[in-house]
Structure formats: structure tokens, C-alpha cells
């Protein structure tokens, strides 16, 4: 059997706390909205991703501390929801719907155009200039406006291969 390294043996990485000052205030403003702190976990994870671009294990541990849940619990939640990144991604994150209704309307071609134009080349890869990471995602709920994509928080409908260069040019 091949063995992965034992846990607890990793080097200690320094983690700059996220939940201080303004971010902390924003999180605490959510507490009255729920009977438990744990219920703030999904909103808080969005705050982590907003602040750092992705969610590291030390960030999960910090958040667990703040909300009173274990790091393992936070990690179980983070890895369940596909919109949370557990590793760094490009400056701009592109999500392309390829589920069948969009698949019927040319999503594959749009996806290939995006992989080409962005420089990512393949799914999940970051372009060499660090600008883009592109992934395919499941139904974005805009099937009548094929092909929909998300670039960061911008939901863009009706993307055809012809429109791709123009759309991507706006993202530095």
C-alpha cells in the first residue's frame, strides 16, 4: 500500500487572520439573523473567498474558531459546495454551463472558444498570465439564453463563440 504523509506533520504556514476589523464586523452583523453561529458558515465562507480568492485550510480553521465548529466540519462543508475554491485560481474565474439544454444549443463550441481565448487551454487550468481559470459547471438556470457563463460575479447570457473575445477583453 502506498502511504500518504501522516497528518499533523505538515510545516506550519503563517496565516493572516481574515476576521478582523471590517470583515469581522460584517460577519457579526449576520449573527442576529440566525439562531446559531454555525448557520453563518456559508455566508462567512463567501467572505473568506472574497477576501483571499480561495479558502485555505488555515482559513477554515480560523473560521471554525470564530463560529464554534471544528476545522474538519468546515472542510466537509467547503468540499461539498463546488463554488468554493480550495486552491488559488486566476484573477478571473469563468464558469461555463454545458448541461444538456445548453449542450443542445452549442455550449461545447462556446466552451472551446473560451478555453482558447482565455489561454487556459484545458478545463480547470489557469492561463499562463494568471488572468483566467475556466471550468465547466452544471445548469446555471438560464437555459433559454444559451450559453450562459459567469465571469466572477458577472452573469452573462447568450454567449456564442463569436462574442467570446469581446467578453473576455473586459477582464484584466
Amino acid at each position, binding site marked *: 500500500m502506498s502511504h500518504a504523509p*501522516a*497528518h499533523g506533520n*505538515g510545516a506550519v504556514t503563517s496565516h493572516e487572520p481574515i476576521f478582523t476589523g471590517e470583515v469581522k464586523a460584517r460577519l457579526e452583523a449576520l449573527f442576529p439573523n440566525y439562531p446559531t453561529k454555525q448557520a453563518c458558515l456559508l455566508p462567512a465562507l463567501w467572505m473568506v473567498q472574497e477576501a483571499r480568492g480561495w479558502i485555505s485550510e488555515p482559513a477554515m480553521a480560523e473560521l471554525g474558531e470564530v463560529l464554534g465548529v471544528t*476545522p*474538519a466540519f468546515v472542510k466537509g462543508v467547503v*468540499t461539498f459546495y463546488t463554488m468554493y475554491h480550495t486552491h488559488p485560481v486566476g484573477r478571473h474565474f469563468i464558469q461555463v454551463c454545458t448541461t444538456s439544454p445548453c449542450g443542445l444549443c452549442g455550449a461545447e463550441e462556446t466552451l472551446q472558444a473560451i478555453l482558447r481565448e482565455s489561454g487556459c487551454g484545458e478545463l480547470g487550468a489557469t492561463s499562463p498570465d494568471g488572468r483566467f481559470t475556466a471550468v465547466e459547471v452544471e445548469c446555471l438556470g438560464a437555459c433559454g439564453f444559451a450559453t450562459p457563463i459567469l465571469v466572477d460575479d458577472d452573469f452573462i447570457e447568450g454567449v456564442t463563440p463569436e462574442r467570446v473575445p469581446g467578453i473576455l477583453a473586459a477582464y484584466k
Partner: protein
Amino acid sequence: MSADVTVTVDGMPVTVPAGTMIIEAAKQAGVLVPHYCYHPSLPSPAVCRMCLVEVEKSPKLVPACVTQVAEGQVVHVSSATAKNARQGVLEFLLINHPLDCPICDQAGECELQDYVFQEGRVATRYGEYAKRFNPVEDFGPDVLYVPNRCILCTRCVRFMDDVAGAAVLNVSERGDRAYIGIAEEQLLDHPWAGNVVDLCPVGSLLSKDFLHKARAWDLDKTASICPGCTQGCSISIDTRDDVVVRFRPRPNLEVNRHFMCDTGRQGYRWLNRGDRVEAPLVREGARLVATDWDRALDRLGVLLEKTTGSVVLLASGRLSTESLGLARQLVAGRDVAAAIHVPMGDAQPLAGIPNLALRRERVPNLKGAELTGYVAGFERAFAAIPRAALVIVLDADLTPEEEARLAAAGAEVVWMGTVATDAQHHAQLVLPLTTMAEENGTYVNRDGRVQVFQQAKGAPGMARPAWWVAGEVLAGPGPDRDAPGTGAEAFAALGQYYPAFAGLSHADLGFTGLVLPPRLAEATR
């Protein structure tokens, strides 16, 4: 008081309290509903779907582990529909499961093997596809996780979350990518974490200590009691060729439910020591000479008669009640300081189970010792040694300082013990004793529960239990002597000396023991 409900399971009628789940009602009817994620000591998530049973008038199969009985329900566990559903689950579980049986520790006691053999398909339909692969993970300190074998029953996660109260395991990812995860800097070092290995129905969570040590079918399994502390968890001592290879918890709903702590679990090695006293040794001048039991017992009788004056009895808290009780009677009526040594440690409760903890007193029979006339702690006993005429060491583990004090004293020393030690060279008589794994006996736990442990392995050389030695001497000479020949007889004999045990027999104690009435469970001096 809830009303009782009568249901029929595979044609067997059974009556159970309202609120009982079908799976437990079936158990009472003698029908095992195959299952993985369900466990009587864990909350039920009903995720494995193995326990789906047919209930007449119900449109769908129902999960027996979370469906309550209803009056007049007719349940079919062995119907074609239920069997097909189970076969489907087994097939799904096997598609990503590696053919590891030849190298998997669980083989022979694996619930996947068992049910597949019983009800699974003969051949795979997944032959040409790749199985999911993840490398083995060391969860530390004693637990290895083999993700490829995991069936995601989540018993381990629920145990850590709800019973241990330390949510250090999780389910990570989603769909067929899911696996059991642990946070990066965390270890599975909770004092009760070893139970996840027992809970795992397959060979996914493994004990590093037991890794590749023995095949399940080579093991003899004996019902016993953990000798680690005063909790008195029911355990199974697993041996192979007379060597103890592991302790595992044995179900006892009154004491430890299905669990034992890691300290107790790892505390079996001393039972395999090779440096044992193997023959009785009597002093002949400057030398100790090996001899037979008859001569040794005669010498013991002589020593007891000869040494008038006070006696100090230094005993191990791991001795059975029978041994402690009958040995104490050897010096009844004399000025005796009888004591057991009680090593201490930190208590480690199991949060989710009431009255279950690794106890501070790390001996199994403190209560039994107190009931048979011993005190805890050697200080007063050692203070009495200088003026004592006779010191009997009953397998006590002495420190070098204590050994020196004993050697310096003028008392005659009779040393009955399991392990051979240099300090025995000063004794008049050295007698080989059995360990608790080598005899039948009882321990009394901290709640006054008397529980039997069975002999798990053969004793080395001529070793005998201390109760036998005492019983032989107490019976005296003559043709009508009445010395106990078995642990059960020794236990029955206790009653004449100690009111707490009057009228009790091993048979009364069953597999889960018996709590002594509180009035009698007070220590008698």
C-alpha cells in the same frame, strides 16, 4: 409507559415497546436485517440503504433502522423484493471496492464479505471500468484510513461527532468522489478514537498496531474484562497460538455499550511477557531451588504457621476477586496490613455515553480488593514492613525503592508472582502465578458490578492462580479436603468469608455481570 406493539417479521410474531425500530424488532424475532450504517450506539442516518425491507401495504421499501413498528405490520426481510434491493446495494458497493481480501485485515470478519457471500451477485458487471483510487492516509496515532475500501457508511464520523464529542472526521467532497476526511493539522488522537476501527464494517479503518498481525480466522476470541481501570469494560481477548494479539470491546449495554478506550485497548502486551516465573522455588540455604507444587505448598503452610506476628500483604489490583479473597484468608485473624497499589492517570470520559470513562484508578479490581479486606495504596503497608514477621507479595509491581525496603526488612518473604524479578532472590518461597488471561475469575468494577472473565490462553510452566494456591493451603491435609478446583468454585467459596458474595455463582453473572446490592458493596474491613 408506552404500549407494546406486535408485528410479524418473516412470519415470526414479536411484541416490542412502541417506538422500537423494525430492525430491532426483527432482532428480537431472531431475524438479522443486513445493515451497515445503522449501529445501536450511534444516531441513524439511514444512508447505506442495506436495511430496506418490505412492509405489506407500504408502496415502497422502508429502511428498517429508522422506521418504527406499527401494530399489525407484516414485515418481509427475506422476500424477493427485499433481497433484490440488497443485492443492488451490494453490487453498487463492490464496483469501486478493491479486491483486497488477500491483504485486508478485515477478511474473515468483514460485513461486506459476509453479505456478498450470502446474497450478492456471483460475478461483477463492472469488469471493464476503472475503480476510484485514493492513497492510504495515516490518521494517526493508531488509525489508518484506506479510502478505496470505504463504503461511506459514516459510522466513524458519527462516532467522533456524537459519541466522542470531537468532530475531527468529516465526509469530504460529493458523489462518488466522497471520502472520509480529517482537517490538515489534526490527528485522530482522541482517547476513544480506536473504536472507529471496530465500527468500520470493512477494512477501511485499520489499527496500525494490529496491521497484518493475524488472520481473523486464526484467532480465538474469549469473553473477558479489561484490566486497565475500574470501569470494567467488557472485552474480547483475541489470541493466536496462545499469544494475545488484541483487545476489542464486547457489547455490554450496562457498562461500556460497544466501546473501550485506547489505553485499555493497547494494554494487552503485558499478558505476553516471556520473563515469567515458571516453577515454584523454595529456599535451600543460599539458593532457590525449583520444585513441585506439593513441596512448595507444604513450605508455604510451614511458613504461615511459623511466622507469628504481623503480616503485610502487597497485592496487585489486577488479581481476581477469587485470588484476592482466598489469599487474604491465608492470614485471617492475624495483624495484617493488606494493600493493593493503584496507579493513577487522567480520567477520559466518553462524552456521549453516561457513566463511561477511562477511570483515574488504573486497576480493574479496586472494589474487589476493598471488599476482600485490602486498602488502596502501599504507604501504610510499607510502614508496617519493618515490624512485620511475614510479607506476602501477591504479584505486586514494586519500584526499585520498594524492593530495597523489602529486602532490607527482617521479615520472611513469600513472593507469588507472574513476572520473574531479581528481588525475588531474597524470598523464602517464589510461586508462579497466572495472569488474568490465564484463568477464570471476576473483577468488581467501580459501580459494584461483578463480572466474569474467561481464560483466554494457556499458562506458562507450572503457573497457577493465586486462589488455587490459597485454596490448597486453606483446605489443609487429609482425604476430605475441599479445595476449589475451578475459578467458579473459588468464587462460590468467597461467600463464606465475605457477605457481599454470599450465595452468588459465576453462572449468576452471565455476560454482563451483576451489581452487588449497595449496602453490601461498601468496603468491609
